[in-house]
């Protein structure tokens, strides 16, 4: 059993969900992502995804109208992420 004073690096695993146009652009509806960052946030994940380049960098470029929801609630870039959170990327909505 690990001693708390010699903790292994914290791993935060979140589930990413891609909706509508983003689901089609990324070719997947969801994926799990393991984060090593000490204080994982929405902004950190967005930066990681942009770093994948190509369509990821295009669709998530700053200024693109993409909203983020964490556990079904709209969240700002500085929102913290906890293990097991569901972070969804939403294009502008067009229901109703």
């Amino acid at each position, binding site marked *: 059993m690990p001693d708390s004073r010699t903790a292994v690096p914290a791993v935060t695993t979140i589930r990413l*969900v891609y*909706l*509508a*146009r983003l689901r089609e652009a990324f070719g997947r509806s969801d994926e799990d992502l393991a984060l090593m960052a000490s204080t994982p946030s*929405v902004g950190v994940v*967005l930066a990681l995804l942009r770093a994948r380049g190509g369509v990821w960098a295009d669709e998530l470029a700053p200024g693109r*109208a*993409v*909203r*983020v*929801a964490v556990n*079904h*609630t*709209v*969240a*700002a*870039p500085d929102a913290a992420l906890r293990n097991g959170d569901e972070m*969804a990327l*939403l*294009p*502008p*909505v*067009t*229901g*109703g």
Partner: protein
Amino acid sequence: MPVRVQTADFDAGHEVSGLRGADARVGAVATFIGTVRDMNDASPVSAMTLEHYPGMTEKALTDIVEEARGRFSIIEALVIHRVGELRPTDQIVLVAVTSAHRGDAFDACRFIMDILKTRAPVWKKEATPAGSRWVDARITDDAAELRWKADTTPGKPD
């Protein structure tokens, strides 16, 4: 439940009767039905698919109804949003509100529709002669939400 997301069609008359019940405090019932048009942005539309984010849609609609309850004096409210494959003239969404007086019923019904349009995680993909396309969000929808913004705090865009 004042909020339902479903693929099945709805009977607006039946739903409104149920919402009114036998409640003699009700003096006003405002209802909105959104339907599929066969034309959008100058293109004929033969069908559309509504995709949503299960779980968040129900939560967003429930939050919007609660916000309406906080702003207006209403008795009951109901929102039904359909998802899946729809064709022109099909019903998409129902918002119904009961209240003692008409001002609150009209205001709350319109408020719910305006906010739903900008916050419910639902997306339309239209089938047109040029192929299928995701519908662009309307500037007018953002303007309609802004009308209500003076004293509310909707989720900020990222």
